[in-house]
């Protein structure tokens, strides 16, 4: 019985650490009031960036040079993209192109 509890705790700990390690690699860009926040985000290569729309109006996320395009994100929907190459990548909203942001990816 004691062995089983220890094992369960150990497994839980592994799972917890795993989740934390994964979360530490994610970064978030919030969409509020027709703006990407932060407008410029610096991350390490391999980081997953999650874009979350908090507006009442749908937005999407479109890469300028680095080609990616999310579907339309309704309220509280999100889109994730892994930036695996170093560089500065401008993106914008394909519906409201005045909304621009940049992801700076360091090695």
């Amino acid at each position, binding site marked *: 019985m004691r062995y089983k509890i220890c094992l369960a705790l150990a497994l839980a700990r592994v799972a917890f650490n795993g989740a934390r390690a994964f979360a530490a690699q994610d970064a978030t860009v919030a969409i509020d*009031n027709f703006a990407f926040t932060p407008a410029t985000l610096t991350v390490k290569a391999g980081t997953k960036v999650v874009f979350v729309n908090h507006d009442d109006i749908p937005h999407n996320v479109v890469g300028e040079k680095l080609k990616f395009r999310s579907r339309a994100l309704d309220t509280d929907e999100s889109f994730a993209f892994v930036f695996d190459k170093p560089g500065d990548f401008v993106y914008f909203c394909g*519906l409201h192109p005045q909304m621009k942001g940049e992801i700076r990816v360091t090695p």
Partner: protein
Amino acid sequence: MTRDDATFDRRQALKCMAWAGSGLLWTLDGGVPTSKLVGQAHASPAGFSFVQISDSHIGFNKPANPDPNETLKEAIDKIGGLPRKPAFLIHTGDVTHLSKPKEFDDADQLIGAARLDVHYVPGEHDVIDEQNGAAFLSRYAKASPGKGWFSFDHGGAHFIGLVNVFDLNPGGMGSLGPDQLAWLAKDVAGRSASTPIVVFAHMPLWTIAEEWGWGTQDGAQALKLLARFGSVTVLNGHIHQIMQKVDGAVTFHTARSTAFPQPAPGTAPSPGPKLVPAGELRSVLGVTSVALAQRRTPLAIVDSTLQG
């Protein structure tokens, strides 16, 4: 504009508070388009009329208007009650909120109750399906020689539907693109300069608020192609409020939404839906009357929001 004019506009605007839904009745008499609030329109002895509706955003369900189907229905009911049947409707885009088939179906059913021909141009909300606009184009733009743009003649006037919501550039505004501009040049070539021209598109063809993307980057190129015509009327939606300007022979006008209002530029941090008390919603979806032919104030933008 004199103080008296301003007072008159305010009074007119207040009158319109009683009006539910949204629709603008245009009458073409002797080649000069004038517009009237649908609820106040009187039969005109000559010419013909058409109605503009815009930004119905079927599928929107947020507090700014939990039931845009109902307000669109009210607008269509008002059109049905006109003393003289309009020749057709134009819808200047954002028929739907998320380009979903059910939203288009609902809109078709509601607008179809008017039993009138409807000419549609898409808003950016109508082209956000996975196939980048196929849902709208396959439904409303089968006869288009391009990506949704088209023209037709009615009663001696030439109507041009333009599309400025595809392939937008980062940091920019609406965009027509070289293909459409080339088509427009051909479309108007050879037409008499006395032909009244009515152009309609979703995003304003003139710059209203660049920081909110309220304009069209290459709109001036389109207007240049129309510069030789004696009467050009430009009808847009997108900004969910009435703004107008007269510049030489060109009259610009934006329509209200049938769904929810948006703030005037400079009055809010973003152009998102403007929340008004439920009892006031229909007053901000109402439409003011516009005497386009009589007012020749150069570059005058008349902001007729009720709060203004």
